[in-house]
C-alpha cells in the first residue's frame, strides 16, 4: 500500500543526490518548531480560559461599603435558594489587600474597610432580586458576578487562542509556499531528466512520485527535527514553574493537547507532500 512512498535505487538516482534538499528541511524545521510553540501556547491559553471560565461561572461576590450590616447580608445570601460556600472575607485580609495600594495607611482604624461576601450560586440565580435585597440591607451593596468582571480577560484569552490558531494556519501556508518555490526550483534543476523521461513515455504521475517522495522525506526530517527542538523548549518552560505560569496562566497541557501537538509535524509533512505533488503536476501540465 505504501510502496509508492519508497523510491527504488534507480528512482533515487534519477534526481541525483541533492533532490529538493538544501534549504527545504531547514525551512520546514523552523516552521514546525514555530508551529509547535505557538500551538502549545494557544492550547495552554485555551485551557487557562476554560479554567477561568469554570472557576468564575457560578461565583459571586457582594461588596458592602463597610463592615456594618455584613452579617445581615450573609444571612440574606444564605437564605437564597441554591447558594453555597458562603464566606465572608475577613477584615484583616481586606486590609492586607488594601495595603498593596495604600501602604501603611491601610492599617489605620479610621479607614473604612469594605466588606466582601463570596458565594457560589446556580445559573438560575435571580440576581436582580438578590441585589435588591442586599441593597435594602446595606445601601450601596453591590452584587458582582465574577464571570462579568472577568469577561474582558476571558475575551482576551479567547482572542489570543484564535490568534494562535491563525498563526499556526499562517505558518502552514508559509510552509506550503516555501515548498512550492523549492519544488519549482527542483523542477528547473531536473528539467532535462524530466524531458527525457517524458520523451520515453513516463506519465506525469511517475515524474511526480519522484518529487513527492523527495519532499516527503525532506519535510518529515525537517518537521521531526523542529518538533524535537520545540519539545525541548516546552519541557524547559514547563520545568521552570514561574515562567510556565507566566506563559500558560498556570494551566497545563492535557493528553489530548499533547496528541494534537504530536500530530502537527505529521500534518505539516502531509501538507508539504500534497503541495509538492500538486505543484509538480500543475507545472508539468503547464510547461511540457
Amino acid at each position, binding site marked *: 500500500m505504501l510502496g509508492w512512498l519508497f523510491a527504488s535505487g*534507480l528512482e533515487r*538516482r*534519477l534526481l*541525483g543526490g541533492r533532490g529538493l534538499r538544501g534549504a527545504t528541511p531547514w525551512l520546514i524545521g523552523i516552521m514546525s518548531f514555530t508551529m509547535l510553540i505557538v500551538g502549545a501556547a494557544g492550547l495552554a491559553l485555551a485551557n487557562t480560559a476554560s479554567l477561568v471560565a469554570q472557576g468564575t461561572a457560578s461565583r459571586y461576590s457582594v461588596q458592602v461599603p463597610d463592615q456594618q450590616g455584613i452579617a445581615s447580608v450573609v444571612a440574606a445570601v444564605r437564605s437564597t435558594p441554591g447558594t453555597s460556600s458562603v464566606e465572608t472575607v475577613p477584615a484583616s485580609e481586606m486590609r492586607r489587600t488594601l495595603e498593596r495600594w495604600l501602604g501603611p495607611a491601610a492599617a489605620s482604624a479610621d479607614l473604612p474597610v469594605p466588606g466582601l461576601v463570596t458565594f457560589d450560586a446556580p445559573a438560575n440565580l435571580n440576581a436582580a432580586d438578590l441585589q435588591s435585597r442586599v441593597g435594602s440591607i446595606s445601601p450601596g451593596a453591590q452584587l458582582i458576578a465574577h464571570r462579568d468582571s472577568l469577561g474582558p480577560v476571558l475575551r482576551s484569552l479567547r482572542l489570543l487562542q484564535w490568534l494562535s490558531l491563525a498563526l499556526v494556519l499562517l505558518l502552514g501556508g508559509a510552509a506550503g509556499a516555501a515548498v512550492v518555490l523549492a519544488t519549482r526550483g527542483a523542477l528547473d534543476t531536473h528539467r*532535462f*531528466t524530466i*524531458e*527525457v*523521461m*517524458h*520523451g*520515453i*513515455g*513516463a*506519465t*506525469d504521475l*511517475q515524474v511526480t512520485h519522484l518529487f513527492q517522495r523527495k519532499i516527503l522525506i525532506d519535510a518529515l526530517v525537517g518537521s521531526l527535527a523542529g518538533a524535537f527542538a520545540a519539545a525541548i523548549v516546552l519541557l524547559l518552560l514547563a520545568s521552570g514553574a514561574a515562567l510556565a505560569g507566566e506563559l500558560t496562566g498556570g494551566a497545563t497541557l492535557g493528553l489530548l493537547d499533547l496528541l494534537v501537538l504530536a500530530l502537527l509535524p505529521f500534518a505539516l509533512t502531509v501538507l508539504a507532500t500534497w503541495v509538492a505533488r500538486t505543484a509538480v503536476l500543475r507545472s508539468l*501540465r503547464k510547461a511540457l
Partner: protein
Amino acid sequence: MTDASRDTLPDYRRRIGVVFQDFRLIRHLSAFDNVALPLRIAGASESEVEGPVREMLAWVGLADRASARPATLSGGEQQRVAIARAVINRPELLVADEPTGNVDAEMANRLMHLFTALNRLGTTVVIATHDVGLISATPGAQLVRLENGTMVDPTGSLRNPPPPREEV
C-alpha cells in the same frame, strides 16, 4: 497526434523510439540504467530488465561499458547507448535525428547496419540526415528529401527493393 489528450501521450511515446543528435542521455545514470529506463517506466520488474538490457548493450557492442556514465563514453558509444535505449522496448517506429552526425565513417556504417537489422525485425526506421551517401548505400532505404520543411520528392527514391521481412 497533435490532438491526442495528454493522458494518451505516454502510451504513444512508448511505441516510438527516438534517437537524438545530442543523445540526451541522463548524465548521472550509468549506460545500463539509461538503457533500462524505458523498461522501468513501462513498469517492468528488475528481473525483466536485467536480461534484455545486457543483451541490448551487447548488441550495440557496449557489454563491458554497462556501468560507465555517459561523460566517460566516447561520442560513438553514447550514440549507441542512445540507440539501445530507443529500441529496448521494441518500438513500432524509430525516429533518429542525425544518428551518424557525431561518429566516424566506420561507426556510421555500423549504426546503419544496426538500423537495418532492427527494420528487419519489424520496426519502421525514420532517419533524418544530411549524409545522403550513407542512406543511398543502405539496401532498401527509401530516400525522401525535405527542403524548408516541404517534401520535395514525395515519391521517394526506392534505390533497391526491400529484402523480404524476417519473421520475428
